């Protein structure tokens, strides 16, 4: 294990006496623990150079890879030219959009049907009230139809293929201590906490809750 870590360190610094003394990219790509370790080694450098962002998104690479996994493979042909991706891209767009387009049409038809049914089933003497219902529903239909179809929304709980997802260890004592201080200070000086009595304080942060 230690020898592997040594080789990884050399790979990171692009230093090698020979190919055998350096970890290969194949080994790194095939081992998620090695990838996490490599990323921590890089993070050490980022921290020393103060290159860490003010706020870290621990799922960033996973989100990028989730989008990339929806893109067709990039291939460079043997003569060095890149195949024309224009048509392929539009084909990809249509093939992905087709089911969503179908769903959007079905949803619109359903809403229109419900609206018509409501109009027909409303008693003849409801007059102005029914006209208001139809008008409000019509506005909703128009708003729905005008919304662009989102094809790249990544739900928070989706399982993302590829990319590293970091999880912060909330039980780390140093972090707990800071979170406690953060919460206590925040409630003590906040003037805008609705429903909270001024004298009340948050006792602490319990990661197990």
């Amino acid at each position, binding site marked *: 294990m230690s020898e592997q870590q040594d080789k990884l360190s050399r790979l990171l610094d692009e230093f090698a006496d020979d190919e055998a003394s350096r970890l290969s990219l194949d080994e790194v790509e095939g081992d998620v623990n090695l990838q996490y370790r490599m990323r921590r080694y890089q993070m050490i450098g980022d921290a020393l150079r103060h290159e860490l*962002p003010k706020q870290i998104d621990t799922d960033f*690479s996973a989100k990028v890879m989730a989008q990339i996994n929806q893109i067709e493979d990039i291939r*460079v042909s043997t003569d060095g030219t890149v195949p024309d991706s224009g048509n392929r891209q539009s084909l990809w767009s249509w093939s992905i959009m087709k089911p969503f387009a179908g769903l959007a049409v079905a949803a619109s038809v359903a809403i229109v049907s419900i609206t018509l049914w409501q109009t027909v089933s409303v008693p003849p003497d409801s007059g102005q009230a029914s006209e208001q219902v139809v008008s409000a529903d019509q506005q909703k239909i128009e708003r729905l139809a005008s919304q662009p179809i989102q094809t790249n929304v990544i739900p928070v709980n989706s399982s993302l293929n590829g990319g590293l997802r970091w999880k912060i260890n909330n039980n780390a004592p140093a972090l707990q201590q800071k979170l406690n201080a*953060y919460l206590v200070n925040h409630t003590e000086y906040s003037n805008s906490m609705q429903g909270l009595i001024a004298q009340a304080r948050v006792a602490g942060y319990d990661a197990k809750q």
Partner: protein
Amino acid sequence: MGTNLLDAELVKRVQAGDKAAFDILVQKYQHKVVNLINRFVSDQTECYDIAQDAFIKAYRAIGNFRGDSQFYTWLYRIAANTAKNYLASRARKSPSYSIDVDDAEHYEGESGLKEYTTPENLLLTEEIEKTVYQAIENLPEDLKSAITLREIEGLSYEEIAEVMDCPIGTVRSRIFRARDAIDKELRPLLE
């Protein structure tokens, strides 16, 4: 393998269809890209969104990357242009969303909290830096010097060997042991 030839090898792999190789590039440069975009856009949430766009654009265009410049130079230009385009389009657009009065009290707005804006994430940068610096302070002098010369000064193994007046193999070993020691302190913070 010399300077940035690792990037060149990764790019070649991506061009051959290896998406995992692109993930390694994302991991390596994500913070640099976010920091660059932060010079244009102050909101951290937007920075990450723009950074995501920039990496996707880079992936789509990587087939055309010929290696005339370093990969990060090329990526830098894409990220900077993406940020500028975002600012330009934001200046052109007026707010276009509309919501019902009934929904207004529950509406987060376009700049609502993203799922990664948690107290833990907000403190994470500070905690990582503090952990790393404390770990460095606890290292023996020779390990501290080696890792500092490598990571902060950016010297090669050969240059460090010259500065520290020791064989290259010793430099290699010191840097690895320093990283390993710091990593042991950092790992409990990140699962």
